[in-house]
């Protein structure tokens, strides 16, 4: 498990685990033995058996099928949050670093203000004011995540400012947008990739936390956090109902964290020696 000395192996392992998450999400319909939303009250709270590998929940729905379909929901949320927040951060952080001056000052103070809120409380407040549901869940997580990309992009641009190849491009008459897209973005991309991979884990965890509080994905959609919320009254009678979705969350978040860490070490082997928190 030592990623530092064997990053090749680490990357492959993490990529394999992530693939192990993506495949079931794509093939959920083929893998799941039952309809994840079909209630069979006569079969409620069954212990694991051959027909229901992880048992059934309080409405008699197959827990295994719900976990498999839940992967789809979590991956979708993760991807959407990462893509949208990265886009927002790249544009705003890029503009701040590239144009500098008042614009930089203004954008970075907004970033500071968003960072002033403890992240989960910011997400909670957004949902608290605007209501629960998928759109607001995504919106709240994007507001939490975009600041990281903005800061990264800005410092990436600042590090490149004044470099000869940028001056050459300007001299050749390239537009600002062209320079940003063709010269600056590729240079910052590796670090953005690491942040995005770790961001997948964050988004999945955040969405599960909010759904666990009943403020994210609403029933009957199979979502891991929401499934754990359903399990709360049965913690004494059927603790497995709480344990299984938690394993699913942990494994998927862990996979993305491992992959992000492995990519980081591969891109910059020295980072293992330096700061890695």
């Amino acid at each position, binding site marked *: 498990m030592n990623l530092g000395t064997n990053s090749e192996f680490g990357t492959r392992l993490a990529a394999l685990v992530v693939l192990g998450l993506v495949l079931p999400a794509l093939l959920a319909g083929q893998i799941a033995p039952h309809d994840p939303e079909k209630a069979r009250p006569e079969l409620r709270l069954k212990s694991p058996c051959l027909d229901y590998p992880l048992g059934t929940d309080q409405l008699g729905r197959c827990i295994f099928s719900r976990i498999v379909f839940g992967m789809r929901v979590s991956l979708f949320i993760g991807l959407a949050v990462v893509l949208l927040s990265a886009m927002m951060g790249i544009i705003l952080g890029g503009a701040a670093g590239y144009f500098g001056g008042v614009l930089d000052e203004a954008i970075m103070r907004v970033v500071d*203000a968003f960072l*002033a809120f403890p*992240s989960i409380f910011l997400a909670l*407040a957004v949902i*608290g004011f605007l209501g629960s549901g998928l759109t607001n869940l995504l919106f709240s997580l994007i507001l939490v995540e975009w600041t990281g990309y903005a800061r990264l992009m800005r410092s990436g641009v600042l590090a490149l400012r004044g470099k000869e190849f940028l001056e050459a491009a300007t001299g050749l008459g390239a537009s600002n947008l062209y320079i940003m897209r063709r010269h600056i973005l590729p240079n910052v991309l590796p670090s953005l990739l690491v942040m995005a991979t770790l961001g997948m884990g964050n988004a999945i965890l955040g969405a599960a936390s909010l759904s666990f*509080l009943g403020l994210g994905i609403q029933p009957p959609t199979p979502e891991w956090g929401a499934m754990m919320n359903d399990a709360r009254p049965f913690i004494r009678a059927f603790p497995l109902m*709480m344990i299984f979705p938690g394993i699913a969350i942990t494994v998927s978040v862990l996979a993305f*964290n491992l992959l992000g860490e492995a990519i980081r070490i591969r891109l910059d082997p020295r980072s293992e020696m330096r700061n890695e928190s």
Partner: protein
Amino acid sequence: MLAFILKRIILLLPVLLLVSIISFTLFYLSPGDPAEILLTGPQGPPDPAAVQEFRERAGFNDPAYVQYLRWLTKACHGDLGYSYTSGERVSDAVLDSFVPTLKLSLISLIISLLISIPLGILSAVRKGSLIDGLGMVLALLGISVPGFWLAYLLIILLALQLDVLPVAGYGQNGDLQHMILPAVTLGASAAAVTSRMMRSSMLEALQQDYITAARARGLSERSVVLRHALRNALLPVITVIGLNFTYLLNGSAVVETVFAWPGIGNLMTYSIYDRDYPMILGCMLFLAMLFLALNLMVDICYYYINPRTRHESGD
């Protein structure tokens, strides 16, 4: 020193203003008419004319920026309005709920430091060993395990199966028995992050020339590590403590709800369930101010303890 603090505070002012604008904007965008919510009593929906009159009187018909400025003026005087549901002063409720959160955070902080500092030192000194690998696995698990799941694992094991600790609640004014499970839950995940920070900081310290010098003088490894390296490696621990608090406060939202711990996380969650918008706004503003103050304190401590930063910030 004073100039440094003043400069920091002045830099904070625009951020505070933006924090208040973000908070108020969300509050302003919330659906539902506050006048209608306030006037709805047990007898059913209020008379539309009364609602209209109340809106006019309370200033809900003014443009957004007028409402914002009025709210900001009041907020600056410590008046955050009244709860929609209980009629309590928001500022009182928020401060009351902060006491249990602070109590829980302090105990969690101690737990997390007790785990993370020794683990970080050992991982750095024995880099690449079994304990370093174990530390790595624990750290990765710590940031991947959802706090509410860990909470329930502990409840299932210690409260339900072994029956040695209470499942949830505040007990007699927050006694230790009721505090152990939530504090361990929060402390464990915070320790995951900080043990890695401690490790990198220790690794960096161990590579400095003065360590080579100390070794060359024939000092024992124990003395080199504990007396020479640790002192310098502990500098960033102040940042670690600040970061830890961030983690603990973040975790408290969900963990406090699981353990029915009457802190600010619990208050926030239940205010959302009740659509008690002024209370949500109050919690949000209070936490942001707390965070900014915490960061400021970390900066000041760092400046005070580490002379090197004084030159950098002097220009």
